[in-house]
């Protein structure tokens, strides 16, 4: 059937900010969908609050609304745009939930909007546990036995029937939030209570535990003629009980016979038909009892998902793109397979390699968080690796994680245990409880002689996986034997057959170097002299049955190399690897832009990355894609093969930047700002000399390599000081230190992170205003991209603070000073490309905090705010173009305000304090734009999920220092009609100023106390600034409880001020929506910068 002609305009809902369980995979799918629909001639209306996405680039939609993804806003957009259809299946759970809500409110009916892809009925059938159960029973599919409950009493009755352990699943939440497995009554009651709270409909499903069963997923697609295909099967390495987002997963399924696989396939097809997903993709999850093969259906996601992004990257089949085309009426057989060109999309990909996905965690960012993995997702990113064997893919995947592991490294030191028995007990304990590094303990368990069946008993991990890991460990043992063998030189010990076998098993040069006490480069040389070549194979959807036209490669050690280096001038772009806090979608955005811009300019672009969620690893983005770990070895292997004219390291975040020196040493042409300049910016001493020369001020500072050094520096500049390692992103191990004892502790931590680089110590400027500047230069022309004023005062990581563009409180004189300083430094550093500077302003003095001659996290935000694609320009400039020729020579200052707000994962880590500091904690960001700053801020808060109330009760508890400044804010809130409740101290302070406030018990005083009020929904906003640098336990409890109950919690005075403003403007006039394209046409003031 051809595409539908009755539809003209289609609306797509994006997934909003990056949060745990909803990351850039939805930008990947959304971007594909926008492209696919526009290709077909449809007008696309898009809403997404996340400015760091490619999909929100103005050219991907006809009207791009960077507005909060809420039912209210979507309704407004629908009223304004009057789309014919709404495609709800590409924006993750957020998109789906909002679409269902909008449908429920009758908005779609009112404006005659058709929901395409999946309708409300089928979404509810898949999402509502009860309806789902009934649907599956109707078609005769087996399910874990389960009971739905709406209260604790019902729960207690149900558990008697189902037994312990028991699974608790709240209905209608994100990524299993609030779910879990209970092993005893106490855990059970806790989890049920939490689940009831988290569920949008106060409903929890209690389920027979299938803990330890094998877990499988199928990615299914269906068209309107009811043709159904399975795109990919996925087998989870970690058995049932661990959220699939936190599991190591493997494609295709490894341990099912064809007979069993086909039964699963039939079940999935029947399920998608019964659920009624008319067109598009679906993810179907199964559990299989390893003892008897009993197969039960676990769940269906009637939309594209994290797994579908993975399946797309794992097979080369673009699920989201095809889903969009199916939604407008095409059938699978009418759509060509891009990769083979001649065959249609109505087929099932055959793969001839093994794909391993490994989640990336950042528990180190959340001290006190429970690192045990369960049914609630906790990982923030993932790496995918492709190899010809599971062993190779696993080791490649482990080194892709960038957690300082070079493969399946050992993580225990036997020396630390007084007896082998203790060691064994320790390892067994580590195996029993699933946690972020369990995979390494499996290796160690085998190293200390535990058997695979013993490990299987403890972990439930399938023996097939364990056997493969054992083969890696066994081979490592033979390598170790060879390493101490006769003959001193490397070549005689590491013989060619041994080396070749090691490479085939995925051992990195670094692992081999460690085993043979050699240098990494020595192993590489040996590979060369032995003629052991890295070979590249294609991901082609068809196991080589047909010619493939899309150059999507992975490396392996085989006989045939399929790469076809072309003759065009090539530029290689190094991506950012797995998402983590501090390095996420913003950098991928920059890489993608570079690729687009350079392709357009006639270069051949080569992307290297290992993150399956991203747009950068879409085979459509660059001329060539190498899906490879971002390590020196893997990157240089590609360089050797492709011999690019230039390599870009400054766009992918710290990951590629860390490779700069190694690449340069290998003779690679690093384009853009020179590595020497990068070094000046990173090296404190050199940087100081430069600032002195330019007569710029920085906070007094020094560097140290040990505690003694640090002590003397701190003594010289005076406490408080800011301690941090060099060459890290995201404020890892960064801390404000007020005394010597604390200093000693942090020096230890910082030196571990810093490695061979020195530790930086700065005077900390309390209560300063922070400013971020992004600029671009080509060596001749220097243009400010944007100057952003932070809302929170200095001391909070720039990645976590809210920012406003253009600045709202700085004087023109100060802004000019900032401009001049920025340009002066860029000129001095001979910046070619992007540069980010962080300043602090205090007492009308400007301090330079940090200069980074590379893309920053704010580049996408600034680009969207000013309507200029900075990363694209930067890439062109790096490749030799001049800003003059590209038409960007003047700073553009919008007349409207753009606010960037950060989004935090605290609801995933119950009990962890939400206080912000120098360690970055946010997973994502949102943007609010409006002609009025207050409204822009309000939008940013709504988009970030901070539902600022327009009436109700505000709880205020501030430290002594803030008691003066809070008075004005509280007065305004009262004027706006709010009631105020405060703790005794704050209430007294308010009373003295003539403000009436009810007082309330603190946490450890009498009941009911503030926690009860929060839980009972009597508090609508919390303003709570920390009492001291080490927060009191009760404060942590209040803030954490607020997060868990969705009560907005403000922890800074400046934040409270901005919020009061926002509430005030919103009370005056309701928010309205405007597309980005319209903002970009608005009045903009151009300013030429002079340095």
């Amino acid at each position: 059937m051809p595409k539908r002609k009755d539809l003209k305009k289609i609306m797509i809902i994006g997934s909003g900010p990056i949060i745990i369980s909803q990351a850039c995979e939805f930008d990947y799918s959304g971007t594909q969908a926008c492209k696919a629909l526009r290709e077909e001639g449809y007008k696309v209306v898009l809403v997404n609050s996340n400015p760091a996405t490619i999909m929100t680039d103005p050219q991907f939609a006809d009207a791009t609304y960077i507005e909060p993804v809420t039912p209210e806003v979507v309704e407004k957009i629908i009223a304004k745009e009057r789309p014919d259809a709404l495609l709800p299946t590409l924006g993750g759970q957020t998109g789906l939930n909002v679409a269902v809500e909008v449908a429920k409110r009758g908005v779609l009916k009112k404006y005659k909007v058709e929901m395409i892809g999946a309708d409300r009925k089928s979404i509810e059938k898949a999402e509502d546990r009860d309806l789902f159960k009934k649907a599956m029973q109707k078609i005769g599919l087996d399910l874990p036995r389960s009971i739905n409950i709406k209260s604790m009493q019902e729960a207690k009755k149900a558990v008697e029937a189902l037994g312990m352990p028991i699974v608790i699943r709240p209905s209608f939440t994100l990524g299993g939030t609030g779910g879990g497995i209970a092993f005893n009554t106490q855990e059970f009651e806790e989890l049920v209570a939490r689940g009831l709270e988290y569920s949008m409909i106060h409903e929890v499903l209690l389920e027979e535990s299938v803990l330890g069963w094998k877990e499988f997923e199928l990615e299914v697609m269906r068209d309107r003629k009811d043709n159904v295909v399975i795109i990919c099967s996925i087998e989870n390495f970690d058995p049932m009980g661990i959220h699939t987002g936190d599991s190591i997963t493997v494609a295709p399924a490894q341990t099912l016979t064809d007979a069993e696989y086909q039964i699963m396939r039939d079940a999935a097809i029947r399920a998608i038909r019964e659920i009624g997903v008319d067109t598009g993709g679906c993810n179907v999850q199964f559990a299989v009892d390893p003892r008897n093969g009993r197969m039960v259906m676990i769940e269906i996601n009637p939309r594209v998902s994290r797994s579908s992004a993975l399946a797309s990257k794992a097979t080369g089949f673009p699920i989201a793109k095809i889903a969009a085309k199916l939604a407008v009426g095409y059938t699978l057989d009418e759509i060509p397979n891009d990769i083979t060109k001649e065959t249609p999309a109505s087929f099932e990909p055959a793969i001839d390699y093994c794909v391993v996905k490994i989640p990336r965690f950042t528990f180190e960012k959340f001290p006190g968080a429970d690192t045990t993995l369960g049914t609630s997702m906790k990982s923030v990113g993932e790496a995918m690796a492709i190899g010809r064997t599971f062993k190779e893919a696993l080791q490649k995947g482990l080194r892709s994680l960038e957690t300082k592991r070079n493969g399946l490294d050992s993580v225990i030191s036997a020396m630390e245990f007084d007896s082998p028995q203790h060691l064994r007990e320790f390892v067994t304990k580590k195996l029993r409880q699933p946690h972020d590094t369990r995979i390494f303990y499996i290796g160690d368990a085998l190293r200390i002689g535990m058997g695979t069946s013993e490990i299987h008993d403890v972990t439930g991990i399938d023996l097939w996986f364990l056997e493969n890991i054992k083969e890696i460990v066994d081979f490592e043992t033979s390598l170790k034997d060879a390493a101490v063998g006769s003959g001193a030189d490397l070549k005689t010990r590491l013989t060619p057959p041994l080396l070749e076998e090691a490479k085939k098993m995925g051992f990195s040069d670094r692992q081999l170097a460690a085993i043979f006490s050699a240098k990494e480069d020595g192993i590489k040389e040996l590979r060369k002299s032995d003629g052991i070549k890295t070979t590249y194979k294609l991901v082609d959807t068809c196991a080589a049955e047909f010619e493939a036209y899309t150059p999507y490669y992975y490396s392996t050690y085989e006989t045939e190399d399929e790469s076809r280096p072309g003759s065009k001038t090539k530029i290689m772009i190094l991506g950012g690897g797995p998402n983590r806090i501090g390095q996420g979608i913003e950098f991928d955005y920059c890489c993608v832009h570079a690729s687009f811009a350079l392709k357009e300019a006639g270069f051949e672009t080569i992307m290297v990355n290992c993150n399956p969620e991203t747009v950068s690893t879409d085979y459509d983005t660059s001329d060539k894609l190498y899906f490879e770990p971002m390590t020196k070895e893997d990157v240089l292997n590609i360089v050797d093969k492709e011999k690019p004219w230039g390599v870009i390291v400054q766009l992918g975040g710290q990951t590629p930047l860390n490779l700069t020196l190694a690449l340069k040493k290998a003779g690679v042409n690093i384009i853009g700002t020179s590595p020497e300049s990068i070094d000046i910016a990173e090296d404190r001493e050199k940087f100081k000399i430069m600032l002195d020369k330019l007569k710029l001020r920085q906070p007094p500072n020094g560097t140290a390599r040990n505690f003694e050094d640090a002590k003397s520096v701190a003594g010289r500049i005076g406490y408080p000081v800011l301690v941090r390692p060099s060459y890290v992103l995201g404020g890892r191990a960064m801390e404000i230190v007020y005394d010597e004892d604390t200093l000693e502790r942090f020096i230890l931590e910082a030196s571990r992170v810093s490695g061979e680089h020195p530790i930086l110590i700065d005077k900390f400027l309390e209560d300063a205003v922070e400013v971020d500047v992004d600029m671009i230069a080509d060596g001749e022309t220097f243009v400010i991209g944007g100057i952003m004023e932070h809302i929170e005062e200095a001391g909070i990581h720039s990645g976590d603070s809210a920012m406003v563009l253009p600045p709202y409180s700085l004087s023109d004189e100060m802004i000019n000073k900032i401009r001049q300083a920025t340009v002066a430094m860029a000129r001095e550093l001979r910046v070619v490309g992007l540069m980010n500077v962080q300043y602090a302003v205090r007492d009308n003095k400007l301090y330079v905090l940090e200069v980074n001659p590379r893309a920053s996290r704010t580049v996408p935000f600034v680009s969207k705010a000013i309507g200029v694609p900075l990363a694209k320009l930067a890439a062109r400039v790096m490749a030799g173009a001049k800003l003059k020729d590209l038409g960007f020579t003047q700073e553009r200052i919008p007349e409207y305000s753009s606010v960037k707000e950060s989004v935090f994962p605290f609801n995933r880590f119950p009990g962890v304090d939400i206080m912000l500091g120098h360690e970055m904690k946010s997973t994502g960001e949102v943007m609010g734009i409006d002609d009025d700053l207050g409204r822009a801020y309000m939008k940013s808060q709504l988009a970030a999920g901070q539902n600022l109330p327009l009436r109700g009760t505000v709880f205020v508890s501030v430290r002594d220092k803030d008691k003066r400044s809070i008075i004005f804010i509280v007065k305004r809130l009262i004027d706006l009609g709010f009631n105020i409740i405060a703790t005794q101290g704050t209430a007294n302070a308010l009373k003295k100023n003539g403000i009436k406030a009810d007082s309330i018990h603190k946490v450890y005083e009498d009941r009911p106390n503030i926690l009860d009020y929060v839980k009972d929904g009597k508090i609508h906003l919390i303003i709570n600034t920390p009492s001291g640098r080490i927060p009191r336990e009760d404060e942590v409890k209040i803030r954490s409880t607020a997060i868990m109950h969705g009560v907005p919690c403000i922890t800074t005075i400046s934040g409270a001020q901005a919020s009061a403003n926002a509430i005030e403007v919103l009370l005056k006039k309701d928010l309205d929506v405007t597309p980005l394209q319209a903002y970009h046409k608005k009045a903009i003031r151009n300013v030429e910068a002079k340095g």
Partner: protein
Amino acid sequence: MKKAILLLEDGFVLEAKSFGAEGETLGEVVFNTSMTGYQEILTDPSYKGQIVAMTYPLIGNYGTNPEDIESGRPWADGFIVKERSRIFSNWRGTVSLEDYLIKHRIVAAEGIDTRALTRRIRSSGAMRGVLSTRDFDTDSLKKKVMSWPVMVGRDLVRDVTCKQAYDWPGSETRKEFFVVAFDYGIKYNSLRLLDRAGCKVRIVPAATNAEEVLALKPDGVFLSNGPGDPAVLDYTIREIKKLIGKVPLFGICLGHQLLGHALGGKTYKLKFGHHGGNHPVMDLETRKVEITSQNHGFCVDMDSIKDKDAILTHVNLYDKTTEGLRHRKLPLFCVQYHPEAGPGPHDAGYLFGRFTEMMRTFKKRRGIRVP
């Protein structure tokens, strides 16, 4: 681990490690893109005369079991994989793939760049090859390969067909139909599905003549899959001709090709054939696409039977080749692919229902004509 060597007739050589029976084997080298189902593939008699290379690199993961067999023994003349699993892990598994191959004396090799091999076959076409764990002299191996018969012109049905007729044990349920199945290399799953569709089945040797079959008074005749070149199977084509119109006919794979010949058509050899479980086939009557199990090296030339009242019913969406046909008036239809699956998707299982439907209609009509 013992060395093995694979040599193709175009001189392509790959070194490998032996993991099955030791020895030397010759045959046409083909690749199969199924990611699961190696035991069914090994035991499919259609692979007689062929050395099978699996494109999925990790094989043997779930071992072998007594149930997933398509005939009484493995028939493939050699087996090639990238990596065979050292252990097997599946609740039904009983014997490792290695032991299974050794027991059945199948020469097998691992450690081969099967993707390179596949690409070679894709560009050069299916070729003769030798897999040896004894002779590593390429000149000598080349000679052996060149003196081995090519697939075109080979009658391999003789080797795989049953020696005498037998009844499929089947389930206890009452059967509506009695079907005679010609065994050209029949797969058990065809029999299982006929049984499930309500047919009592008698399997007869390939050379059984039509009169004997009709004397059994079957409601329908099933023409099975099988190995080799259909064009040289005169002795079967001749008998099928005699059955056309007298009894409903359903052919699969070789059975389909033989029907094509019996209708007066021709077959030709495909460059490297279809072997896998993911080919899309369109049913031209319903316009629906089914994902199919495929295993054939020859194909019916529709042009050759244009004027014989044959209608194309199924087409392969990959290369547009013939995947099924029926007669405009007479009760017969056949498909090139494998609706019986084993291994592969079950999408086309409805064809067994179509066969019983045809038999039912035929039965009724005959009842009217001969009271």
